[in-house]
C-alpha cells in the first residue's frame, strides 16, 4: 500500500496553485467576493429583519400577551379581563420576565374641533411601559404621560396633523363603556409621538390606565397584559407557567400574536438561501473551469504520477486538495471581508436616499447589520461542501487517465 503523507499532497497542491498566479488570484478573488457577498448580505438582511422584529415587538406586542379568550378575534370592551390573580402575578414574577404591564385597548373615535378619526384607545401605566413598548421613547414634542396625568393624551404626529391639533389643545375621545353606552371624555394633548411604521401614528392614542378605566367604567378590569422576557426565542417554559396560572385566559407568544413577523423571517431565510445558491452557482463555474484547465495542462504530470506508482485515489486527492486550499483561502478572505464590512457599518447603512417608502412599510431606512453565527456557518458549509462536490469532476478527470496516454500527450 502506498502511504502518501498529506504534507506532500498539500505541498504539491499549494505549489501547483501558484504556477499560474494570475489565474489563481482571479479565482480566489471571485470566490472571496462571493463569500463576502453571502456574509454581508446575510448580515444586512438579518440586521434589517431584527430591526423590524424589535420594532414590531415594541409596537405594543411584547413577547407574550394575555387576553380574555375572544379578545384577539374581537378586541372590544366585552372581552375584558380581571387584574392578574395571585397565581398569575407569581408567574409574572419569574426571573425571565423583565417587565410586564396591564393595558386597556379598545376601539374609539377621537375628535378635534375640526376632524375626527377612528383609532385604538390605549390606556397604559406610563412607568411600566418603559422597556415594554415604543411609546415612552417616541414622544418628540411635548412630554410623555405621567402617573397622575388624568386628562393627558398622546397623539401620533400624523393623527395630530389630520385632526389639525397639537400640544396643549383639547380633543374628545368616544368609545363604548361596559354598559354598551357611549362614553366620551375630553383630554388635553400633552405630547406628540413619532412611530415606525407611520401607520401607528394614526392608529393609537394613549391615555393613562386610570383614565381609560374610569372613562369606560371598567373598574379594575383591563384588556390585556403584555410582558417582555430575557429571550424571545425561549418562551415555552414561561408560557406553560402562565397558562397553568391562568387556565381560563388566552396566553400567546409574539409568534402567534404577530404571525406575519414569523412569515417575514422565513421569507428572509429563503431569500438568503436563494442568494447563496445563485452566488455559489456563479462561483462554481469559475472553480470548475480553473480546476479543469489545471487538470488539462497537467495531464502529462498526472500520467507521470501514475507511472511512478501513485494510485489514482491520491491524484484525485491532490486535485481536491487544491480545491480545498482555494476554498479555505477564499472563505478566510470572504469572511474577513464580511466581518470588516459589518464593522464598518456598525453605525448603520443609511438607505433613506434610495428608499423613501421604507418607513411606511415599517422598515427602517438605516440598516444595522447583524452577523449571526448560523448564517456565517451556513454560507461556509455550503461553499465548502458544494465546492468540493463541484471539484469532484475535474479530480475524477485527472485520476482516470491511462498513464501511457497521459505521458505521451504533447
Amino acid at each position, binding site marked *: 500500500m502506498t502511504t502518501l503523507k498529506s504534507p506532500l499532497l498539500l*505541498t504539491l497542491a499549494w505549489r501547483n496553485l501558484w504556477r499560474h498566479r494570475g489565474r489563481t488570484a482571479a479565482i480566489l478573488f471571485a470566490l472571496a467576493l462571493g463569500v463576502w457577498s453571502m456574509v454581508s448580505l446575510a448580515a444586512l438582511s438579518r440586521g434589517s429583519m431584527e430591526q423590524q422584529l424589535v420594532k414590531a415587538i415594541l409596537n405594543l406586542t411584547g413577547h407574550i400577551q394575555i387576553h380574555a379568550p375572544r379578545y384577539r378575534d374581537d378586541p372590544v370592551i366585552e372581552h375584558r379581563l380581571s387584574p392578574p390573580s395571585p397565581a398569575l402575578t407569581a408567574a409574572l414574577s419569574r426571573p425571565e420576565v423583565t417587565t410586564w404591564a396591564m393595558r386597556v385597548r379598545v376601539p374609539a373615535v377621537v375628535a378635534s374641533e375640526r376632524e375626527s378619526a377612528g383609532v385604538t384607545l390605549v390606556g397604559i401605566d406610563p412607568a411600566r411601559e418603559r422597556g415594554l413598548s415604543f411609546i415612552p421613547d417616541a414622544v418628540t414634542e411635548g412630554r410623555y404621560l405621567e402617573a397622575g396625568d388624568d386628562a393627558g393624551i398622546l397623539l401620533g404626529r400624523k393623527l395630530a396633523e389630520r385632526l389639525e391639533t397639537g400640544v396643549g389643545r383639547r380633543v374628545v375621545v368616544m368609545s363604548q363603556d361596559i354598559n354598551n353606552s357611549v362614553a366620551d371624555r375630553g383630554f388635553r394633548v400633552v405630547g406628540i409621538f413619532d412611530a415606525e411604521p407611520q401607520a401607528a401614528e394614526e392608529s393609537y392614542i394613549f391615555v393613562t390606565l386610570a383614565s381609560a378605566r374610569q372613562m369606560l367604567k371598567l373598574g379594575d378590569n383591563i384588556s390585556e397584559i403584555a410582558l417582555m422576557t430575557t429571550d424571545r426565542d425561549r418562551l415555552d417554559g414561561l408560557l406553560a407557567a402562565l397558562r397553568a396560572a391562568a387556565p381560563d385566559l388566552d396566553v400567546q407568544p409574539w409568534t402567534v400574536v404577530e404571525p406575519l413577523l414569523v412569515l417575514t423571517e422565513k421569507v428572509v431565510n429563503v431569500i438568503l438561501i436563494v442568494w447563496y445558491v445563485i452566488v455559489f452557482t456563479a462561483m462554481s463555474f469559475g472553480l470548475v473551469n480553473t480546476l479543469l484547465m489545471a487538470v488539462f495542462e497537467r495531464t502529462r504530470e498526472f500520467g507521470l504520477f501514475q*507511472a511512478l506508482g501513485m*494510485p489514482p485515489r491520491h491524484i484525485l486527492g491532490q486535485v481536491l486538495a487544491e480545491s480545498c486550499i482555494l476554498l479555505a483561502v477564499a472563505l478566510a478572505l470572504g469572511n474577513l471581508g464580511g466581518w470588516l464590512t459589518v464593522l464598518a457599518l456598525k453605525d448603520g447603512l443609511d438607505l433613506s436616499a434610495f428608499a423613501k417608502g421604507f418607513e411606511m412599510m415599517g422598515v427602517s431606512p438605516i440598516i444595522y447589520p447583524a452577523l449571526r453565527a448560523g448564517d456565517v456557518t451556513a454560507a461556509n458549509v455550503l461553499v465548502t461542501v458544494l465546492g468540493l462536490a463541484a471539484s469532484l469532476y475535474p479530480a475524477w478527470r485527472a485520476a482516470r487517465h491511462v498513464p501511457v496516454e497521459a505521458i505521451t500527450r504533447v
Partner: protein
Amino acid sequence: MEHTVVCRSVSKVYRQDAVAVQALADINLEIPRLDFVCLSGPSGSGKSTLLNLIGGLDRPSGGEIYVDGNRVDRMEKGELAELRLRRIGFVFQAYNLIPVLTARENVEFVMQLQGVPAATRGAKTREILKEVGLEDLEDRRPGELSGGQQQRVAVARAIVSEPSLVLADEPTANLDSKTAENLMQLLRHMNEDHGVTFVFSTHDRLVMDFSRRLITLRDGRIVDDVQRG
C-alpha cells in the same frame, strides 16, 4: 537463470479510426537479472510500446509479461501502481520531473509514496544526489536545471527506491553527445553498483555501445538480439 523480465508472444494492436495498427507482434524475450539491455530500431518499430508494456503503463493485446515473476498483463490498476512503485523505476525522454518540486523533493517523491521514514529518505536522497553529481543543486527546481542535470535527477529518482528494474525510454534523446555519454556512464555505474536491471531504448549508436545486449526491433518484431559481452 533468474529473469527480471519475461515476455511470451506479446502483441499490441492500436486502433485508430477503425484502422488496426500492429505495434508489436509475437515478442518473446527473457531479460536476466542485472542485464543492461538496449532496444534499438527506427521510429515506430515498437521500442517505446514494449517498454510501456513491461512497465505496466499500457496493456498488451495478447501474450504474457512477467516482471520479477509477477504477471503484469493481468494485474489490476492498483496492483500495477504498486508494482511500479516497488519494483520499477522509469526514466523518460522528456525528463518528466515534477516541476513544482525541487531536485531533492523529486528524488524523495517515490520514497514518500512508499512510506519511507523522513530520516531514511533524507539520507538516501543526499547519497544518491552526490552520486549523480548534483549535491549542490538539490534545492533547484527542474526549470532551473539543464537538460542533462534534469535527466540525472530522473535517474536518481528511478534508482533511489532500489527497484529491480529501470526502464529508460530514449533517455539521451534531448541531450548533446557529451552529456549523453556521461549519462550512459552513470546508468552503467548504477547497473553495476546498485544491482539494477536496465532496459533502455535509443536511436543513438553511441548509446547502444554502452549496452551488454542489443535488441533490434522493426515493424513491431524482434529482428536481432545480440550479446555484446
